[in-house]
Structures are given as structure tokens and as C-alpha cells.
């Protein structure tokens, strides 16, 4: 990486990805597939929970994940830009 801001940016980016992808894995593979039968014991309305997560809930979570990602990355980008404008060691980046 060219400078410390860029390195910090990339590390923060990877951290955000790791966090969001853990949720992604947990809701779809763990709740929607591996534990679906266990979760089916819980009912709300006409739905069994495991079935609902597999066919509905996981999709809502995916939408929320991408929206959270957009917001977090916009903030990170803004911080990176203001940091690197203050920094002097950095080459022009475009």
C-alpha cells in the first residue's frame, strides 16, 4: 500500500466485509439450513421459524446487509478522503 491512510482504509474495509459476511453466513447457512429443523419448533402465526428464515427472513436480512454496507462504506470513504487530504506523504490518487 502506498501510505498509511490507504492501508488503514483497506483494513477497515476488510473488517466491515468480515462482519457483514459473518451475519450473511449465520442467517443463511446456520439458521436457514443447518439449524432449520431445530428452529421449526418455534412458531409465529402460521410460520415455523426455520421455514420462515429459509424462505423469507434470510432475504430481508440480505437487503439490510447491503444497505448497511453502502452506509458504512460511504462513511469510510469520506473519512479516508479527508484524512488523505490532510496527509502530505500521499501521491495523487484518482
Amino acid at each position, binding site marked *: 500500500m502506498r501510505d498509511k491512510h490507504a492501508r488503514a482504509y483497506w483494513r477497515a474495509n476488510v473488517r466491515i466485509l468480515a462482519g457483514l459476511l459473518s451475519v450473511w453466513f449465520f442467517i443463511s447457512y446456520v439458521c436457514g439450513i443447518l439449524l432449520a429443523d431445530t428452529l421449526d419448533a418455534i412458531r409465529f402465526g402460521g410460520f415455523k421459524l426455520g421455514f*420462515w428464515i429459509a424462505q423469507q427472513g434470510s*432475504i430481508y436480512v440480505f437487503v439490510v446487509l447491503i444497505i448497511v454496507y*453502502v452506509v458504512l462504506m460511504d462513511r469510510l470513504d469520506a473519512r479516508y478522503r479527508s484524512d488523505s487530504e490532510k496527509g502530505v506523504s500521499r501521491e495523487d490518487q484518482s
Partner: protein
Amino acid sequence: MTVQLWTYIFVALSFGLYIGIAVWSRAASTNDFYVAGGGVHPLANGMATAADWMSAASFISMAGLISFLGRDGAFYLMGWTGGYVLLALLLAPYLRKFGKYTVPDFIGDRYYSRSARLVAIFCAISVSFVYVCGQMQGAGIVFSRFLEVDITTGVIIGMAIVFFYAVLGGMKGITYTQVAQYCVLIFAYMVPAIFISLMMTGNPIPQIGFGSELTAEYGGGYLLDRLDNLSQDLGFAVYTEGQRATQDVFFITAALMFGTAGLPHVIIRFFTVPSVRDARKSAAYALIFIAILYTTAPAVAAFARTNLLNTVDNAVYEELPSWFSTWETTQLISFDDRNGDGRVQYSGDAETNELQVNRDIMVLANPEIAQLPNWVIALVAAGALAAALSTAAGLLLVISTAVSHDLLKRSLLPGISEKQELLFARLAIFVAILIAGYFGINPPGFVAEVVAFAFGLAAASFFPAIVLGIFYRRMNREGAIAGMLAGFLFTAGYIVAFKFVVPELSTPEHWWFGISPEGIGTLGTLINTVVALTVSRLYPAPPRDIQNMVEEIRLPGAVPAAVNHP
């Protein structure tokens, strides 16, 4: 008015709209043709991406498949939407930052090698062809049923329309027609779903109606409980319980997720927005637009299944509603009165079952089964065509850019002018449409199954190569090429072996680790990754300028200048 007349009206109106948009948005340059000039608004791109990606399989087949699979059908739902999360987080922003036209462009430049580019071209073309055949076939089913022309004529009409706007407008024409197609298809999907939900449960929101109680007319009680009981009584599996082995569901879901993220015609859409930020935003919009259909589909599946079981079971054949005989003439429903009592016995037990229902017709027949007004039935036909044609157009564009840009301009004939390149792009679409049409008329299998294989192949070839290219700076050309070939050949080999060479052995006992051919793409992805990482260690790291390029695409870039959105 009859269904047929309504269908003619809706199809003619929607086709007129697409052609109008195509004329309005003609492509003048290769930049327009390949990436719509890079100036598409994220909201429009989100809709176009949603239409591009929701194919005939999503529209026509998915609810039908779920309706026959019950809970296991969730692998289509989670797989095709969860893959979007991967695409939005791991690929879209970086590929936009990279800023060229195609996936083979990225592979070729990132891995500084003509062979890598050629491998990527080969994978892109094969994946897209497999997928486009499914679309043409879907369009054929709609034409043959609703316009009562034969499938051949149907496919030819579909080909002519796509040809017209894809050749004229390239990506620009395709993008704006896809926006219109999204509106048509989502409207056509939601209207009958809302009608049916209201009728059966009194709740207008299908996502909620699906977990509600049935109205008194339908006998009360929770819909899903009723469906479970009905299924069990007739000897089918309990609807809300999984039947397939857990590891198979796991692998199929993963294959569809990695595949979604690796599909070249979806990735290419993120090259059309003005900035990295817009690429992220448009992925979010796209998933919201997709989620509307994807959360409705399982509700439609449950409604359709309940309705079907209620209507046909033990019904007197002569008294069945008219939709039954219209679908019988297309041979997508067949009834064989084995015990000669003149009634339909529909059962999960193959010995006594008298009814065969093709899964692909559930969405198309659903409004008729629920006795909705004729215009709603016709609307579904227009929506299904929008879904098939929008995806077909996106795929054909990938095929044509792969030939004219990646193969000719960047590999074989670097000297050609922009005008010639544009001509070759249009010629390539023409040839691709002819081949796709041929396979549409002589289809290789179920629409959704064929498409599921395309996902497996995309997962096993592109996904690791692109992700490693971004996230692992030391990945070199030797590793990437070896990985792509290993993943693609392994997956294609497994599918061909079990589906075409020895289909009689395609049972869970013979599958490796109990993984069906639909799920094998996940193993292919893993093989690709392991091979790529191992081989890359044996060869030197990529040159300095490539490593710099990787660092460059990881950064957000300058604040995008104002772009005038057309």
C-alpha cells in the same frame, strides 16, 4: 374479452415500448454499446440489473419448483439473493474501480496474460450460452401457451425482438429496455399474487398472507398447516419440512450464491454506473427490487400448491375447469385414469398417481387455477416474456462483447477501428441469437435446471479468480489459469457425467459426498481456489505494475465528478 386477445394486447404494447426505447437510445460508440457510456443512474441500473438477472427461471419456474420442493426450494431463494450480497461486497465496487468493459478484460489485465483472457472468454461464452438457452425456451413456452403459436414460431418472434434492440442499442438500449421490463415483470408478478392472497387469506400482502389463516370459504386454519396436511394425506412429503440431505441443500445454496456473483452478465452491469459509490448503491437497489419478487415467490408457491391439490384431487375429470384441458393440449399436464373411475387421483405414490404436472407451468397456470380475470392471466404472459427477453439480451451482450472486444480487439485483431469493432459486436449478437434460438427450439431440459448448471459453471470458473485477483495481491497468472480450468472442467465433467452420460446413476448413493450435480459448483469453486493458491506459490509473484493496479482498485478513488444522467 378472451385471454388470447388480452395477451395479444399486452404483448404488443410491451414490445412496442421496448422497440420505442431501443430507437430512442441507439448506441453511437463502443463505449455506449458495451457499458451504456458509463452514465447510468444507480436507481435505473438497479432496476436493469434486477431485470437482467431475474430470468425466465425466476419468473416462470422458481415458484413452481418451490411448490413441488416445499422447504427445500429455499435453496433457490437464498442462493439467488444471498449471492447478491457477495457480489455487492466482494466484486461490484472493485470491478467498477477497475473501469474496463468486461469480465475477461479484468481477468486478462489482472493476470497479465492472453491465455487467462482466452480462458475467461471461453468460460463467459459457455456460461452465457447455457443460460440464454433457458431463456429462449421460457419465451417459447409462453408463446406456445398464450398466443397459441407453436414453440418454433414463438422462439423466432422472441429472437427477432431481442435482436432488434440489442443490435441497435447495445448496452445502452438494453439497459433502458430492461428498466421497462423490470416494471412490466414485477407488476405482472405481483398483481396475481395479491389477488390470490386476498382471495385465500383476506390479506393483500402475499408475504404475510402466506403465514395467515385461510378464509372460511377455503376452510379456515393456517394455510401452511392445511398444505402440510393435504400433502401428507395424498402421500406427498410434508411441505414445510426439508427432504433433501442437509449437505446437499448446503452445497446447492452455495453454488447458486457463488454463481450469481460470478455471472458475467450481472457483473458487467456494474461497469455502467458513473462511480464506485454508485456501483455499491445500485447493488443495493437491485437487491431490493429482486427481493420484492423473491419474497413473493414462496407465497405464490404455497398458494398454487394448495389450490392445485384442492382443485384436482378426487375431482371428476369431466367437470374440471377449462384451464385443465388447455394445458393438457400443450402436454404440460397429463392425466391417465388408471383405475377407470373418471376421477383424478393425485398422489405422491407413483403406483396410484394419475396426474403429471410440469413444474414450469405453476406460475403461468396459477391465475387460471385461482379463476382470476382474463386480463390478469394475460399480464402474466407479458411479464414472463419481459423476464425471458431482458435476461437473454444481457447474456447476448456478454457473448458479443466477449467476441468483438475480448477476442478480436484485445486478443486477435488489435488493429481494428472502433467502427469495425462495433460492427463485429453486432454481427456476434446476430450469430449468438441464431444459436440460442436453435437451442430454444430444441431444448436440453427444464428451464430452471439448465440455468442452475450455468450458475455452477460460473461459480467454479469466475468467482474465485476475480475474488483472489482483488483480495490476494500475490495471485499470479499461473495460479489463476490453473484454478479456472480445474474448477470449470471438474464441474462441467461432473454435470455432464451425471446428467447426460450415466443419468441412471444420478442418485444420492452415487453422488460424491451426496452432492447433486446442481450443487457441485461449490466443490468446483473450492477446487478452483485450492488449485489457484497452490499453483501460485510455485511461480513468481505478479509484476510490480500489476500489484500497483490491485492496490489502486482497492481504494475508493476521487469524488466522482457530476455526471449527466440521461
